[in-house]
C-alpha cells in the first residue's frame, strides 16, 4: 500500500467514491424525501432546495395520516413492532434449532444425514408463492392463520436453512482435535459443545443470525397472505400508503428510513464479529 503512487491513490479514491455514490444515492434521496411534502417531491424539475418538514414522521408516529381526502388511521408503529417481534423470534428459534443441528451435520455421519441437510436447504429453492397456497389451507385448519406463532413458524423456512448451512461450515472448520482435547480433559460432550464449539463458531453464528434476520425482516409475501392488519410487518404495512388520494411518497420515504434503521444498526454493531478473529492459530498452520 505504501508504494502506491499518488495517481494510483487518487484514482482509487475516485472509483471508491463513485461506487459509494452509486449505491448510496437512492438511500440518500429517500432520506431527503422523508423530510419533504408530497408536493415538493412531485414537482418538476426535482430540486434539492426545500424547507424540511417533520410532518411525515409525525404522521407515522401518531398513526394519523392526513391526506387531501381526509384523515386515515395507519398502524405503522405497530407494523414496525410486529417486524421486530417476528424477525427476532424467528431468528432466535432458528438459532436454537439450527446451531445444534448444524453441529450434528458437521460432526457426525449418520444415515440420511446429507439428504436431510439438503432437504432443508431445498426449502430455499421453492418460490414462496408455490408453498403459500397449500400452507394457508393447512394453517386455516390448524388455526394458525393470523397468529404470531404461525408467522414465526413460517419464517423458519427463511431463517433455518440459512443458519444451518452457514454455521455447519464454521463447525467443520474447527479442528475436531480441539474438541477431543477438551473431552479428554474430562468434560462432557454437552459442555464441549457449549464451551468450545459454539464460541469458536461464534462469528459464523453471528453472521448467519444477522443475515437471516435481514431476510426475515424483508419478507413480504408470507405475511401478506397469512396475517391480517394487526399482525402485519412493515413490508406489508407500507401498502397503506397507497391511498385513494394518491401515493403518499413522503410517508413512504419516512417509513423506509424508520424500517431500515434497526437492521442497519444491527449490521453495524455485529460487523466487528463478522470480520474479527476467524483465524484460529491454535493448530499448527
Amino acid at each position, binding site marked *: 500500500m505504501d508504494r502506491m503512487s499518488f495517481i494510483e491513490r487518487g484514482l482509487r479514491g475516485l472509483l471508491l467514491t463513485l461506487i459509494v455514490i452509486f449505491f448510496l444515492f437512492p438511500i440518500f434521496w429517500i432520506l431527503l424525501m422523508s423530510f419533504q411534502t408530497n408536493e415538493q417531491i412531485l414537482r418538476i424539475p426535482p430540486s434539492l432546495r426545500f424547507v424540511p418538514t417533520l410532518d411525515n414522521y409525525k404522521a407515522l408516529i401518531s398513526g394519523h395520516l392526513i391526506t387531501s381526502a381526509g384523515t386515515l388511521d395507519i398502524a405503522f408503529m405497530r407494523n414496525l413492532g410486529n417486524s421486530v417481534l417476528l424477525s427476532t423470534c424467528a431468528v432466535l428459534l432458528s438459532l436454537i434449532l439450527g446451531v445444534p443441528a448444524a453441529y450434528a451435520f458437521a460432526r457426525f455421519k449418520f444415515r440420511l444425514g446429507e439428504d436431510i441437510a439438503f432437504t432443508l436447504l431445498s426449502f430455499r429453492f421453492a418460490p414462496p408463492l408455490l408453498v403459500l397456497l397449500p400452507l394457508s389451507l393447512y394453517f386455516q385448519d390448524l388455526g394458525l392463520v393470523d397468529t404470531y406463532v404461525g408467522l414465526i413458524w413460517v419464517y423458519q423456512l427463511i431463517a433455518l436453512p440459512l443458519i444451518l448451512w452457514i454455521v455447519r461450515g464454521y463447525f467443520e472448520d474447527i*479442528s475436531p*482435535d*480441539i474438541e*477431543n*482435547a*477438551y*473431552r*479428554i*480433559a*474430562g*468434560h*462432557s*460432550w454437552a*459442555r464441549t459443545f457449549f464451551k*468450545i464449539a459454539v*464460541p*469458536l463458531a461464534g462469528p459464523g453464528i453471528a453472521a448467519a443470525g444477522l443475515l437471516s434476520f435481514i431476510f426475515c425482516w424483508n419478507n413480504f409475501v408470507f405475511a401478506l397472505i397469512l396475517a391480517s392488519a394487526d399482525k402485519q410487518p412493515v413490508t406489508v404495512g407500507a401498502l397503506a400508503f397507497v391511498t385513494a388520494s394518491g401515493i403518499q411518497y413522503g410517508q413512504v420515504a419516512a417509513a423506509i428510513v424508520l424500517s431500515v434503521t434497526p437492521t442497519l444498526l444491527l449490521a453495524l454493531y455485529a460487523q466487528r464479529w463478522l470480520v474479527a478473529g476467524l*483465524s*484460529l*492459530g*491454535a*493448530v*499448527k498452520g
Partner: protein
Amino acid sequence: MAQIEIRNLRKSFKQDAVLKDLSLNVEKGEIVALFGPSGTGKTVLLRLLAGIYPPDAGTIGLRGRDASGSPPEQRGIGMAFQNFALFPHMTARDNIASALTARKADTAEIARKVDAVARLLKIGHVLNHSPRELSNGQKQRTALARALVADPDILLLDDPLRNVDAKLRYEMRLELPALLKRAGSTVLYVTQDFKEAMALGDRIAVLLDGEIAQCDTPERIYAAPVSIGVARLFGDPTLNLVEVQPKLIDGAPEIVVGGAAIRLPESYAATCGGHYMLGLRPESLYLVDQEAPGTIAADLVAVTPLNEKSVLLFMIEGGSELLASEAGDRDEPRRTGPARLAVDLDAVLLFERGSGRRFVPADNFGARP
C-alpha cells in the same frame, strides 16, 4: 494386570485396514515409545486408547478394567496432540486449567497446580497469552502442561516434539524423561524418530503394517531386531544388506561377501544351504591395515564427516555399496582408494530372504546384548 492392555485391536477406515490384530501391554510406570514410519497407525492407536474412535474389534483395558466402550471424559487419561489442539479462545492458563476444572477443584488449588506445572515447563511468563501469541515451542509446552497438570496415571503423547525447532527438540528430549519419570505416569509416546524412541522409551513398540512387529528394550531392538523391516528403521545410516548363501566349509558355516570368505560362528550352522540377507550395521564394519582372511577388499569412494562421526562409502566386488561409520576424531581425513574392511562377527544379523525374519542362532540371540 498391566496398566494398559490392548488385545487383538482392529480398526479400519473405509476399505483401509490401519490396525490389524494389534496387542500390546504397558506396565505401570513404564514409558513405551510407539515407533514406526508415518502412516502406520500410531496416532490412530492413541486415539483408540483415548476413546476418540471406537475400535472395530478387540478390547482396551485400562488399569485392569475393560474401557473399550467408555467415552473419552471417563478414561482419566492425559493426552498431548501432535497439532497441539489448544483452545484458541482461552489463555494459556485456562487451557492448562481445563483439565482441572472438570474435576471440580477449587480456584486456589487450580491456580497453584497450573503455576507449578508452568514453572516446570518454563512457560510461567506467558500464562496470560492466548495461543495465537505463543511461539511453537511455547504452544507445545502448553499442550504438554495441559496433559500433565492433573497428574494422570496414563499419559498419551502424540509426537509432541514433531512441530518444534531442532534446538528445542534436543532440549526437550533431554528434559522429558526426567519429567515423565517424576510424574510417575504410564506413558505411551508416539514418535517417528528412532533416536527419540531410543532416548525416551523403557521399551520400544515397533508398529509395522498394523501390528506390533516387536516390543523390547531399545538395546535389544537395535541388536536383535526380529526382521529386516525393524532393523532398517533403526540406525543412521541404516544397516547394509548383502545377499549371502551360507555354506558349510570344513564343518563351519561360511559366507562370501565381496569376494571374501567370512567364517560365521558355529551357531549359524543351521543356515547353511539357505538364502539369506546379511545385515551389517555401519559401526560393525571397520578398516584394517593388512590383508587377512575374512577381510573384504573394498574401494573407499566417499567420506562424509558428520561432526561426531564420519560415514564412509565403499564399493565392493560385484558393485554393491557398503556404508561404514567411525568416530570422527581422526587427525587427518581418510583418503579415498583401495582399503580392507573387517566385520565384527558378534554384530552379524542374518535374515531369511523370503520372510525377512531374522535367523536366531541357538546359543544366544546372535548379537551383543
